[in-house]
């Protein structure tokens, strides 16, 4: 198994290199550092000298791939690609375009992100699975039909509606929670409840419908009939057999997102004013800070690949027949 994991992690290198090249091409070749300088300087201050100065200040004044002016090995290493792109591999994110250390920001901001994303994930998984199991338990009845219709209606509503509506009802009208903001420590829960609740309601339609479909497919199989014939109760069949056997597709969708919980949610964090990585990213997008966007792309890919490996490992736990060789 260790062998397998190592091999999978090695396979991650070409993928991360691909991500790296892609973002590098987008941000340095399609969009040259000159374009970047122009945006940051603003239309009024664009002079050739100002652009050169901005590029020197932010370390964008080197050639892309080959530095002909340098000597020896520096020809290949003293370039933008190595400085700005390859260094991400050792998690050296460098400084953002406004001069702050990106790694430090990530270290600080991942905790508020996690405080929202982790409860959302855990409670959500439990709630969606329970709701789906409830519908399957009452399959074929009016409750099931009504539940499915509710799911389709819920998933047809824009996610922004839940956020705006939730803030209006729970924050402004009922004064249950502060509308937005965050505070570390014991009082954090006050700021956590509303974003978590809103994300839960926003996700229930899609996920529960998907899980219900999985269970319905599983429940039509022979082993379920056998289990029932043995005299097992409906509930026991549902929880032990159906849930257990539907585990693989559930894990496929669920485990891969776990590492990315650190990065938070763009929409939720920016609406609720959570100082996490999601709002960091959205601020960077709006301020056109390419250094941050590039770092977040790389971090996201890295975490995704970790998630894929975790998914494979979780299969062996869910199904003893799976062997990682």
């Amino acid at each position, binding site marked *: 198994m260790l062998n397998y994991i190592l091999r999978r992690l090695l396979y991650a290198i070409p993928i991360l290199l691909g991500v790296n090249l892609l973002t590098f091409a987008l941000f340095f070749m399609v969009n040259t550092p000159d374009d970047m300088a122009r945006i940051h300087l603003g239309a009024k201050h664009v002079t050739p000298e100002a652009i050169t100065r901005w590029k020197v200040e932010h370390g964008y004044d080197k050639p892309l791939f080959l530095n002909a002016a340098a000597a020896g090995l520096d020809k290949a290493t003293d370039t933008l690609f190595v400085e700005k792109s390859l260094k991400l591999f050792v998690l050296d994110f460098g400084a953002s375009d406004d001069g702050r250390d990106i790694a430090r920001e990530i270290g600080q901001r991942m905790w508020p992100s996690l405080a929202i994303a982790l409860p959302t994930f855990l409670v959500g998984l439990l709630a969606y699975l329970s709701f789906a199991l409830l519908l399957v338990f009452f399959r074929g009845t009016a409750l099931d039909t009504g539940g499915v219709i509710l799911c*389709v209606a819920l998933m047809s509503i*824009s996610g922004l509606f839940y956020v705006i509506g939730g803030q209006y009802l729970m924050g402004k009208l009922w004064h249950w929670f502060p509308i937005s903001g965050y505070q570390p420590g014991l009082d954090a829960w006050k700021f956590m409840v509303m974003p978590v609740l809103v994300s839960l309601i926003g996700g229930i339609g899609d996920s529960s419908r998907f899980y219900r479909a999985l269970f319905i497919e599983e429940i039509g199989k022979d082993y379920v009939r056998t289990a029932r014939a043995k005299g097992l109760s409906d509930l026991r069949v549902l929880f032990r057999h159906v849930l257990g056997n539907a585990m693989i597709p559930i894990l496929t969708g669920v485990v891969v997102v776990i590492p990315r919980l650190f990065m938070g949610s763009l929409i939720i964090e920016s609406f609720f004013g959570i100082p996490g990585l999601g709002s960091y990213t959205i601020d960077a*997008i709006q301020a056109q800070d390419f250094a941050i966007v590039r770092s977040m*792309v790389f971090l996201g890919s890295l975490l995704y690949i970790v998630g894929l490996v975790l998914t494979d490992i979780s299969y062996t736990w869910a199904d003893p027949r799976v062997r990682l060789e």
Partner: protein
Amino acid sequence: MIKPVLLWSDALILLLLLTVAALVWLARKNDTFRAPWRQVMASRMGFVTASILAVYAGIGLLDSMHYVERLPSAPGQQAQYSGEVFSALDALLKPLRVNVEKTYSSPLATHLYAKETVQGPDGVERRDYPPLKYPGTHLLGTDKVGQDVLYLSLKSIRTGLLIGTLTTLIMLPFALSLGIAAGYFGGRIDDAIQYLYTTLNSIPGVLLIAAAVLVVQVQIEAHAEMFNTAAARSDVRLLALCAILGVTGWTGLARLLRAEALKLRELEFVQAARAFGVTDARILLRHLLPNVMHLVLISVVIDFSGLVLAEAVLSYVGVGVDPGMISFGNMINGARLELAREPVVWWQLAAAFVFMFVLVLAANLFADQVRDALDPKSRGRA
């Protein structure tokens, strides 16, 4: 006098319509193709949702016939055209478009929503709700700058539909060619294609889209002289958004198609064709492609609703359509802070959400019907 204008997106819509028409014409005699669709239209749900979608599509089409108006000029002078592009829908809704109030007014109101200093009939100034210029005509009220909300909602439809359909149009060639090739040829080709889609998949979706849109934005600003009207500029930005969504969004369908092709290539009819010496190209086109078409259709209708919803979120993040373009996302974005006002300005948000909800709900339910008809195994599952 008017002169028709063909924006890039209009041209693509035309292409899409012609393709669909050609497909329908080719398949009109073929019972295998017609049977599932007849089944969809025979069910009450299928018929109702298809009708709703048709109404939306009709509004979108009307809004895609663009023209510019000729400016009055002296005889003998060369014709001059206005820089503002209108559509057939604008012409139909002219009263809604030009009857602009000063600021917010609630649905069917006769007075503005906020008090102002007005002069009474006796000449005395006092604080009161000023009367509207066109009282009782704004069915859904007016927005911050006094535009009719119903007009804005109807205009948003085209943007939503375009994102939902053109993205698919751009995505399909990638998904079809790469997905089937990976499954059919296997080996090195499969490895390369799998590498490609794992790489694309590993990048967080919104970030990849954001990155690409930022780049496009800079490029449009750098080549501003290429676009003579604001409509042409926001049109190109919309197309770029569709292209980006398409290029990043093909991986899901491609993976499905790869798995299906992997299965199909071992089946007898494909093996037989190969034994007869039929070329790979012909096998792919005649034997594999028709047998994966149901998967393609199902995923097209399922993706549609997701894309309409995605537009709103992306426009909120600031990487969606041009801020000057009328779209559901921009409507919501412009009105989301107004719930904090006293009294609450709710009608603009409500209109955008309801128009979007009806479209997406109809599309979702229609997709279910299509899936049930084309893939009988899935019946009753969801």
